[in-house]
């Protein structure tokens, strides 16, 4: 296995994970694109070392075609999902004028209500 490729995968994953944990949806989309690249590269690396393109009829030994096919499917699917995330971001922007991820209101209400109880309990003692 090529350390260069492994390093690319590691780098893409690191930056991808860092970006998807951001608040801005455009960063999140970017992050998922990078993670998608990392996953595709992983599939390719898992399939073995480079060789000639898998077109039958040549003399040279060919590269393992299966991971290429899998990677192609993966690329297409992550392509589709990236586009969908873009549409979500556009919709969010139409609704709020921005593309920031919001926190869940009901969750916050529940967390807040229990905090209030804590405070009132502390006050009463």
């Amino acid at each position: 296995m090529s350390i260069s490729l492994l390093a690319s995968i590691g780098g893409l994953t690191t930056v991808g994970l860092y970006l998807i944990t951001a608040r801005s949806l455009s960063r999140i989309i970017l992050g998922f694109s990078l993670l998608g690249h990392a996953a595709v590269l992983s599939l390719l690396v898992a399939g073995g070392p480079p060789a000639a393109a898998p077109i039958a009829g040549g003399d040279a030994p060919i590269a393992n075609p299966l991971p290429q096919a899998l990677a192609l499917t993966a690329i297409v699917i992550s392509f589709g999902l990236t586009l969908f995330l873009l549409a979500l971001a556009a919709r969010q922007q139409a609704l709020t004028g921005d593309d920031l991820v919001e926190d869940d209101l009901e969750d916050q209400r529940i967390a807040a209500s229990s905090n209030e109880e804590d405070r009132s309990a502390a006050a009463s003692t």
Partner: protein
Amino acid sequence: MIWVFLIAHVAGVGCAAVAGRSGIRTALGVAAIAPTLTAMWAGVSMASGAPPTTSTFPWVDGLGLAFRFRTDALAMMMTLLVCGIGVLVFVYAIGYFAPNAGGASRFPASLLAFSTSMLGLVWADSAWTLFIFWELTSITSFLLVGHNNTDAAVRIAARRALMITGGGGLALLAGLLLLENEAGTSTLTDLTPVQGSAANVAAVLVLIGAATKSAQVPFHVWLPGAMAAPTPVSAYLHSATMVKAGVLLIAVTGPAFTGLAVWKAVGLTFGIASMLWGAVGALRHRDAKLILAWGTVSQLGLLVTLLSLGTAKSIFAAVSILFAHALFKAALFAVVGEIDIRTGTRDITELGGLHRTMPIAFAVAVAAGMSMAGVPPLLGFAAKEAAIEAVLGLSGFDAVVGATAVIFGSVLTVAYTTRFLITVFGPGPTTKVAPRRIAMTIPAVMLAGAGVLGFIAMGTVNAIVRPAAIELNPKAEVYELLRWPGITTGLLTSLGIVAVGLALGAAIARRATPRIPAPVGADGADAAIDGVLKFAPRLTGRVQHGSLPVYLVTMAGVATLAALPLALDGSTDHLVAWDHPLQALLALVIVASAIAGAFVGSRLGAALTLGAIGTAMSGVFVLHGAPDLALTQLLVETVIVVGFVIGLGHLARRFPEVENTWRLTRLVVSGLGGLIIMAALAAAGADPSGTPPVGDLTAGAVEVGGGKNVVNVILTDLRGLDTLGEVVVLAVVAVGILALGSTTAREEVQ
């Protein structure tokens, strides 16, 4: 036969629900049919001495779950009580409810549903059959207790009852599972003594289950609250039937557990504590119904005590008292309900002089009360006498504890009975009463009359009770209930108990009870439930805080942990620096662009780095011998960048400044994640246990697939199903984008 009657009951539930449309009284009448028939059948078959039958209906064989019933003497005795008293309670309820009362469909059907569950419970011959009906009685009684549910206190009481009995049900489930494991059978009549630590745990769990149902201290707290139910329910469930389920459970599992010290110790603790604390409660309260409820706790404590002692005679006594108690307690509840309806109150400080205005009720109360106190010439006397004899016949530690507790408890029983009778019916301000409702009077008279009749026809009672006791302990056949035991220690003790109890009761009755005692325990149980309800949001607020970045970091962290065993298993032999020098260069471009993309502040810049990475990726693909991937990657990248531009074109050029307090956590988790993926991939490929069939794939592609581009043949043929799924995904994405877009467009038009 068992099935006929069970089905009749179930059908009755449906009919009663329908009949509710023509009023509650009609529905009650309809509901009474099945119990009447069943009671008659039980009477006839007992009189004719029909041999016991069993009947099994398989359900889940693999788990040993089946409906297995038996009609032995114990079951028939309980049938007589459940259905006989059941019929009387239905009649009583006809008087209790106004003709136009609400819940006409609900109440009779629920009551009959409860009756059905109880019937199944007493017939059960399998621990699981018993458990199934046990839980059903919890549910149906929940519905009955909560009948007047617009009242918040009623809802709380119903919830408390359900949670305590339901919780006990879970303990029972575990206990019975352990018992089945140890005993090797779930057939109750086949149980043999078990030993060992698992058996001890099982014994305690079963006792806890029984204690919750039979309202044993400290689980008794639901029973007084359950008095919020309409009185027919109290008379039926909380005196004669449901609370007896726990006692019955102790009785039928006794053969397995009697040898265990812990069984006896825990059982006696429950029993004695309940007997005494229940009696104290009955002396403290001033709501007549609550007095009876606490009296029930005490009486159930006596039953549990006697069963836990486990001698043949104490079991015989327990069965006898169980029988007598069902009759007299139902009668007493019926009287209290009548008083409640006719005077509008159950507070003993407001009641008085009812012996004049409600003479029949008075007679019933005296007859039933004397039976409860164990005064001749009533059935309760003979049963109590058997209990006294049983504890006096013990030896050693049992004798000291058992005899003291039972005698002391009996004194208190006489005392609270006396107090009840004096304060309600004795001298005092004469309370105004409404006209008599005959449907309420008849059942009360019949129930109290049964106590008298039972004493006269002691032979018949013996014919019912004795075989039942023998089912539990064959040695019980030497005992019988006696009208006159002769001058024995037992009789003298009994007389002493009555005398002391009368004096005590009369003395307490004269004292005013100024305040309503606090519901000790009930508020504790509610506080526990509320505590859980309060703890829940606190914990949930921590776990489910609603912030996506935190969720994602958590997930990345968990994944990193999961890959640890992989990464730690790595070998480095198969690693090379690069397959081709250009590869290293491209890797550098990819990583550098990625890092730039993370820190670039403008959206356009970010999109451009994405483009750069995509192009470099294509280069890697070309080097790797994957031209299809390279081509696709380039095209895809173009569309995505275009999408970025048109989709987010309205946004500000620069990313918004967001408060970012935990960038370090993100960095650490991401960095570890990247490292671990690298290490894991390297480790996974270190020593493959199989090789990809490259040659076969190529041959297959050319010969069968008819194409030279193996990747394409794989996509359209070998793995065409994947491609099918993939394009469906694209189609759905397109639909989704259009839907979101059209929503926005519509809003803009508006």
